[in-house]
């Protein structure tokens, strides 16, 4: 196989933003997530919880609440006072309507998805109608003093409960009047501070569930105005609440990072009387859990430590499969790092700036596992701040290291980089043609001659890069007409002949190679694509899907390769299929066409197509055992998947040259100390 000199990079200072809101799609197949920096992501449950879509944030946009309405439309509202609709096919924040009540604290859709209710800073609850073009103001409900922090519709859409500070009120929707006002802290004599009702829910039985800042989950009968049950789940605040559709299970998230499940259970076995009982405590997060959601089969929580945790409920899982495993997602499912192989430069993409680093070098050699001293330290060359309040979508550096491009929601920028001796200079390329924004992906060709920009509606623009610093639009590739509107273009690496681009939507991957005069469509697959690459010499397209399947498609022959067919008929190893994170990057060894290098968050793998495939009975990660075996025994046990789990969590891996790898890691403890303060945990003996 060979020895590699590994550049182990840990100076990528990525601090992922915390999770602020979660919204489960009513039909339960997708999850929308909003982060504290305004970015919105959509996860697909069916495709192994793959992060399908990402809409980058905006400096002025904070999202306090997300909801799905009218089928597949996603709406968000925040402290800026606007209600924004997110265009999921165009991956941008579309129309924004001013709520008219100051900062909006919460927004919920009714059961049919035709109306949106928003709770504002001034204490008003407003109803908006969801119409095909956007949303329209319908009317104001009764306004009382005190900001409305949380809202909930009754399943029959007759009443709305609005939680505020020290009280909550129930409003009759048809008349718009407050029919009941309940003080949450009334029975406590000496309340030293105000009680903030952080989350509230109205059940069909007429029970109101409230989570407040004293760590209590309380069940009220709103018609009588009485407290039915009170559970103190935590000493710090209970920040979020979600009720399952069947209304027999509630998940509560607290400030300490613990989440609790409360279930409605019969008091005696087989009896009629039911009570709410706190059943399962979980401590998955280290920071505040500000967002929880309850899907039919799982408890989902998102914390300010940037983790999304999906905990399937065992009693709801029908068959025993990897679906029952706990999932934790911290890092995005896409690349944030680009590498200029020849120049040994790395480009790091942050939300509002880019950093260009040069790798260090060493002149010594060593044995397996040794750490070699550096003769030249890695150098931070340039920090390029993006102009404007919008966050960066995508970025790329050319293989020669002289061109850097990035795109925001409205503009695409291209820069020329000059490294002369000690100094580095960046010059903006003028007169970059304006394309239909946004650009989803950027890719430079292998000879740094042309730039491919994948943009809206599946079109790919080809630019020619001119010396000393200019660019000219050559032409635009458009997908076949049947696929328009659903394309999320993906550009594979390794387009050596300058013309291979591939577009992929969740359903139909299609490959256009106009310069090679090829145009073919890869057969459909029902899962999202997580990574794509085209081999520079053999022109084979390797696709990794989000359900961990690997397929190889030969573009010249317009069919799957024989190796791919063998893999499909044999089936991939069970340990391979039961991985948590998707493959985010595929790359090749130019000298050896049978090698494919891939990585996901927890492992990197060199796939050798010439070796036999493993079956379920052999060990998949057998590198350590192979090292101890003698030569002859090793030959018998070798299989195609050579996996290394030494570098975790991986953000990027690439092959610099024959014997040199670069891996970019981001240890979790490195950024956890930069997050907001956590709540103290008293442990005995410390």
């Amino acid at each position, binding site marked *: 196989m060979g020895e590699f000199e590994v550049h182990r990079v840990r100076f990528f200072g990525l601090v992922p933003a915390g999770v602020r809101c979660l919204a489960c799609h009513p039909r339960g197949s997708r999850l929308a997530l909003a982060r504290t920096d305004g970015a919105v992501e959509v996860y697909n449950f069916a495709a192994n919880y793959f992060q399908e879509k990402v809409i980058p944030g905006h400096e002025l946009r904070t999202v306090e609440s997300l909801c799905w309405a009218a089928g597949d439309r996603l709406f968000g509202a925040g402290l800026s006072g606007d209600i924004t609709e997110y265009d999921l096919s165009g991956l941008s924040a579309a129309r924004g309507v001013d709520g008219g009540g100051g900062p909006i604290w919460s927004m919920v859709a009714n059961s049919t998805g035709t109306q949106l209710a928003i709770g504002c800073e001034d204490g008003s609850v407003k109803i908006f109608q969801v119409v095909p073009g956007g949303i329209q103001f319908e009317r104001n409900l009764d306004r009382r003093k005190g900001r409305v922090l949380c809202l909930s519709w009754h399943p029959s859409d007759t009443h709305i409960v609005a939680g505020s500070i020290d009280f909550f009120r129930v409003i009759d929707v048809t008349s718009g009047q407050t029919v009941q006002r309940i003080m949450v802290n009334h029975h406590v004599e000496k309340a030293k501070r105000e009680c903030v009702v952080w989350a509230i829910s109205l059940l069909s039985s007429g029970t109101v569930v409230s989570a407040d800042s004293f760590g209590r989950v309380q069940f009220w009968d709103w018609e009588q105005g009485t407290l039915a049950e009170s559970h103190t789940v935590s000493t710090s605040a209970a920040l979020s609440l979600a009720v399952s559709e069947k209304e027999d299970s509630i998940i509560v998230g607290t400030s300490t990072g613990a989440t609790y499940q409360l279930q409605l259970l019969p008091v005696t076995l087989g009896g009629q009387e039911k009570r709410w009982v706190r059943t399962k405590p979980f401590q998955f997060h280290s920071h505040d859990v500000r967002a929880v959601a309850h899907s039919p089969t799982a408890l989902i929580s998102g914390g300010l430590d940037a983790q999304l945790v999906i905990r399937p409920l065992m009693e709801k899982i029908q068959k025993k499969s990897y679906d029952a495993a706990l999932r934790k997602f911290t890092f995005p499912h896409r690349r944030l790092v680009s590498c200029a192989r020849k120049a040994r430069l790395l480009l790091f993409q942050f939300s509002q700036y880019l950093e260009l680093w040069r790798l260090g070098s060493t002149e010594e050699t060593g044995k397996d596992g040794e750490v070699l001293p550096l003769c030249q330290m890695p150098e931070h060359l340039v920090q390029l701040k993006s102009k404007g309040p919008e966050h960066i979508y995508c970025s790329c550096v050319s293989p020669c290291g002289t061109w850097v491009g990035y795109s925001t929601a409205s503009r695409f920028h291209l820069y020329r980089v000059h490294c002369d001796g000690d100094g580095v200079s960046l010059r903006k390329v003028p007169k970059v043609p304006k394309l239909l924004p946004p650009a989803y992906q950027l890719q430079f060709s292998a000879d740094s001659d042309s730039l491919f920009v994948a943009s809206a509606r599946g079109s790919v623009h080809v630019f020619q890069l001119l010396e000393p610093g200019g660019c000219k639009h050559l032409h635009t590739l458009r997908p076949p007409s049947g696929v328009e509107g659903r394309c999320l273009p993906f550009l594979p690496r390794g387009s050596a002949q300058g013309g291979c681009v591939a577009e992929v939507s969740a359903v139909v991957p299609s490959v256009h190679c106009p310069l090679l005069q090829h145009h073919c469509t890869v057969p459909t697959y029902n899962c999202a694509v997580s990574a794509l690459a085209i081999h520079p010499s053999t022109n084979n397209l390797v696709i990794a899907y989000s359900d961990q399947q690997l397929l190889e498609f030969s573009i010249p022959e317009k069919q799957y390769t024989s190796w791919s067919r063998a893999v499909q008929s044999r089936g991939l190893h069970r340990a391979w299929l039961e991985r948590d994170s998707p493959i985010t990057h595929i790359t090749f060894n130019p000298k050896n066409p049978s090698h494919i290098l891939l990585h996901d968050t927890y492992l990197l793998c060199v796939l050798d197509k010439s070796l036999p495939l493993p079956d379920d009975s052999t060990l998949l990660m057998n590198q350590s055992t192979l090292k101890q075996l003698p030569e002859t025994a090793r030959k018998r046990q070798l299989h195609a998947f050579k996996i290394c789990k030494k570098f975790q969590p991986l953000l990027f891996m690439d092959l610099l040259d024959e014997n040199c790898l670069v891996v970019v890691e981001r240890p979790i*403890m490195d950024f956890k100390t930069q997050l907001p303060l956590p709540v103290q945990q008293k442990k005995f003996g410390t």
Partner: protein
Amino acid sequence: MARRQKGKAAAAGKRRAPAALPSPASSSEDEADEAPEEVPFGVAREAAEAERKLVGEAARRHRELLKEKRRRHQELFAEQKKRKLLPEAVLQELQELQELQDVSARPAEQAVADDSVTLDEELEAEAVQLDQGQAESQDQVEVQEKKGKKSKGARTKGNYMAVCLKDHSVTGLHQQLAKDFLNAQLYGPHTNRVQANEFFSLANKKDPVKKAAVQFVDKSWGKDKKEKAERFKKRWLATQIKNGL
């Protein structure tokens, strides 16, 4: 009060005056029946004058005393102020420096003054006056400029802040209030928050193999010393290279 005193004194004087004269033996009842006594004008006048003089002296002495006090206080303040200022020599140097600056600035000013003057006669006269007056007003201007420059040099930190109005619109204020509320509720004094180092080091403490805290070394220790050392190193290397060449 002086008048009352004088009046009192006069009355006292008047009362005493009759006491100086031989008076018939009188009792209180008799005084009421009898006619008022006759006092010769001259005596009374003298007495009144004497009284006034006394009072006047007292008042003058009092005034002198106050003046003295005020003068002494003034001197004290002047002394303290002098002590606060820099020593004479340094002030002299600064003045010289400013003079030099003024000299370099003045030609520019003159040019400006010349340019701004139009060709009207009056204004010409003014210009002439300006040129003439330059010499006189030079000192004043100098003094003024120096004063101005001195005040600039003293850098009075004003109570103002320049902000961009766009950021401080009403929506911005609402948003800021909302964010402050959120911050106070989540991270306020009652929330029992703790530093990240303490929080994450608990696990290291409880481990069977005890480890150091997560941020055992505080990177900010001796930061300026480290920076100074870096700069020195750069400079030293540069000189070495130069000498080597």
